[in-house]
């Protein structure tokens, strides 16, 4: 049974990119996307994802607020995907304190956007690791 993943990011391009990366792995399935936290919370009850890839900087409801609410309404494991919250930063710590299972950097740097590249692997590896529980 494929792991159900949801991608939440306010940039269309980012959503597409992450979706491409995640779908490249046959054991993972993107069941939905959202462009901000509110959107995410509304959909999560129906989609019932196993893992949520969550951006921090979003309009309407940012990642941190979303994370708090997600703890109530979903059993999904939340991985923060961000270009702000690098591993050691205060924001990463806050996210973890609120229950995020991991904080990883958004894919970056490859003009050729090779989807087989290592950067993509970091994301799929994290998803698979936490999906197991």
């Amino acid at each position, binding site marked *: 049974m494929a792991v159900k993943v949801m991608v939440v990011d*306010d*940039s*269309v*391009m*980012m959503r*597409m*990119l992450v979706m*491409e990366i995640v779908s490249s792995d046959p054991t993972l399935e993107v069941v939905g996307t959202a462009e901000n936290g509110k959107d995410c919370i509304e959909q999560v*009850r129906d989609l*019932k994802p196993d893992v949520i890839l969550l951006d921090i*900087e*979003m*309009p309407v409801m940012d990642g*941190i*607020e979303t*994370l*708090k*609410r*997600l*703890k*109530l*309404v*979903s*059993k999904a494991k939340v991985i923060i995907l961000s*270009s*702000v919250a*690098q591993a*050691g*930063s*205060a*924001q990463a710590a*806050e996210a973890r*304190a*609120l*229950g995020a299972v991991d904080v990883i950097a*958004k*894919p*970056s*740097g*490859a*003009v*050729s*956007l090779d989807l087989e590249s290592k950067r993509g692997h970091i994301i799929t590896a994290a998803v698979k690791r936490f999906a197991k529980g």
Partner: protein
Amino acid sequence: MSMDFFWEQFGIECAEHLQVIDQCLADALTHACNPEDIAKLFRSMHSIKGLSKAMGLLSMELVAHRCEDLLGLVRDNGVDLSRDLIELLTVANDTLARLHETIVEQRLDQPPNDALIAKLDAAFQHFSGGVSSSADLPVSDTQNQTEVEDADPLFAALRVFAPQTSELIHEICDAWFGKGVAAPRKVAKPLSALIERVEAAGFDGLLDILTAVSQSLAKKPADMDAEWIGAMADLGQQLRDLEAGFELNFGAEFFRAIVPNHFDAVSQAVAGPLAELSLSLPESGYSEEALADAMASLGQSLRQIDLVLAFADPRNRSQNLQLKLQSIYAAEDIASAFASLLVQIDHIRDAIFDQLVSGDQSQDCFNFLVALQGAVTPDASAPKEKSASQLLPLLQSIGLNDDFAACTPLEFLPDLAALAEGASQGVLVTIDLNGNPQAARLFVQWSKTHEVKSISRSVIVQDMTLFEFLIISQSSANILIEDLKRDLGDALMDVQKVGAVAKSDSPAPQAAALEAQSTPSASQPAPAPNATPTSTQSQIRVSAAVLDSFMAQVGCLVSVRSRLGVALQDEGVSRLMESVSDLGRRLSAQGHPEDALLLDRLRAAVQDERMRLATVQVEFQRHLSSLQQTALDLRVLPLSNLFARLPRIVRELGTAQGKELRFVMSGGETVVDKSIIETLVDPLIHIVRNAVDHGIETPQERQAAGKSGEASLTLAAVQEGGEAKLSIIDDGRGINVERVAQKALERGLTTPEKLKSMTPEQIIYFIFEAGFSTAAAITETSGRGVGMDIVRTAVLGIGGKIAVSSELGKGSRFDITIPVSAAIQNTLVVRLGDHLMGIPSRYVDEVHQIARSELRTLHDQTAYLLRGHVLPLYSLEHLLMGSTRGDDERVLFVVVSAGGRRIGLIVDGVVRREEMFLTKPHPLVRRSPYLFSATVSGEGKIILIVDVDGVMTRLAQGA
């Protein structure tokens, strides 16, 4: 998804964000911005950064990142969006827009705009007042948050939901641990009430966890503990996350309260039995039965502690206390392992109680578990010692050498027993595996095709290392022998049957006999052996002098490599490169980009060179390490060489003196450097002779004292890491400490005052002093110019330690610890002023730093109270050079122990631990009673090695 799509998307999204920024900044010029506008501005710049980063567009990313940082200061640090700042950001945004246009058109990154970047950097420095990186800036905007909270119906609902949940959680926790014992069934009622509420509210996240708890309750008792605890701990964690998120009380505190409320009761339940056990176990002799009982009774209590602790730190509940108990079982000194476990639990109870009320107790509990883990470590050598006592009779009944005992795994006991009873067949085979590479392969093949079990050991015959295999099989021994001869051919040196035979009649296995005749020194010419080496062997005789010279060269290489390593790490070059970098930037700013580029290339070239050098150095190190190892291996021999002469000596002595002796040796296959063996031959013989002469009583005396007529003398060798421990143990009359003390006074080796402050264990070491002898006369068999002092000097000379302990009437024990390799020793390098000194690690127990105010003075002696014991402190500088400086606030000392004594040596600093290649002690250096030898460090500095035993001796004499 093609690249076209991503380029298009990038083009569109970026353009949108650039537009938003442009508009916001324009608005900001005319009227003040509210937080929402700032947030929007920030987010758009952030998005541009993210998008350009994803596309790998450095030119845009560098600018956008700095703008984002500046806007971060405005958003979070209260920096005002002043006119200046707006203008700067507008310029930046325009640049971004221009870059964006070109990039999208060409689909190619552009060169970075260094001038703009520099300006933005400067602005950031200015406005942040030196805040270093955007990663450190706090994030959540609390003002915004409370507004959101009030408006959101979810929060309103939670304000009602939370206290209700908290009450139910309280009930659950109380029910769970009501009487100090888990009572999960009482939990069912409040649990289902909670589940109902949660379901109604649609909080699926909580619902799943609660359902898991409920399901684990339904399991049978045996499974229940682990799953139940897991589920409850998950619940506790979830509640904690929710509380952190919403700042409402969901009841997580009741989970936390379980620990202080019940930990005490539970740990008492453990502490009591532990204390009893640490007393009763030694009496039972640590029998397997007693240990099994202990484990059973403790197991229950420890499981309780596990349950409790899981709440404090759910993430670490895999640290199971029962595992700790297992490792105690395997520990060598079980009494002290139990004792230390007891101390640990006490200590942690205190620590946890202090912390629990206030802060984060999960860290303490985690530390508790880590500390417990460190309280006991399994000792690999322990099982061997246990098995020796059971194996020896078996081996003897089979007709095998006692040396086999040390290399026989426990699981072979039944097979050996079967062999002894005649239920299976045994063959003893001697094979030359080293000289004949085929032999190994052939033998492995052979043993695969014939289902046999085998135990092996190495033996030295003349200069060759041969391997002796005891093969046990159900097949007929004759057939086995035929097959072996056929399959192994020349590699087979010797083969014979063993088994349930009368030991006195059967010829001793040939290899062992040869072994007894061989001499320890490989450089003496040997008579033609009975087992002729095959002609395919190639061996060379090497003179010891040449080997020594070779070792010295290897030692120099080690120093050279160290110096290379140090040079490569030199900070100087890095700083130089930074300056080059700066120069490049300056040139670029002054409008000489080509020059800047050249400098860049220079820098890159230097980096590359250093990388290459570093790689070469690493390779060099690798090869050097294995060269070192090979050089050392050239010289190692098994201790059986040392042991060879002893059985006959003991037998002859015993007969001459009319004493009955049982002499057991084990561990002969332990290997040490050849020079060590040579040095130890005479001392070992001396100790053994002493033991027989003075230690062992006549059978009549023994029986009168209630002992068995036959005395036992044991020589055991054990390898412990880089050291080997040789123990000579007898159950004779022991050493009379009174007489030792008296003699020491007579010989002027000490004063009555000093004696008063010494324990018996310390007094006994006087036997190692020069000029000391308790024998009334030098007899024929002992004291031939080899006194105990020479024994000790010999042991120290090879970098070893000797310890003695004894109980009057019960026996004595000598423990000689020797390094496996004479040449390289682990040393703690310390600093005394400008000098470097080395203290061999085998003496070093620990290092401490205290405040000068913590020093005490007792009887004119500076001391420190270390864990309840008085530790005398001496300034190393004062000892060596007679001077003292130092009114430093901090006092740093190294705790060393030798000869049963423990002192602290005050030093100026601890530099590092190093594997040093030690040369023979130089006579000039040895003139000082405190110094042992000198060596050269990696940087070419001279390091003097402290003779800790010498220090102890001088101090005891009242120097």
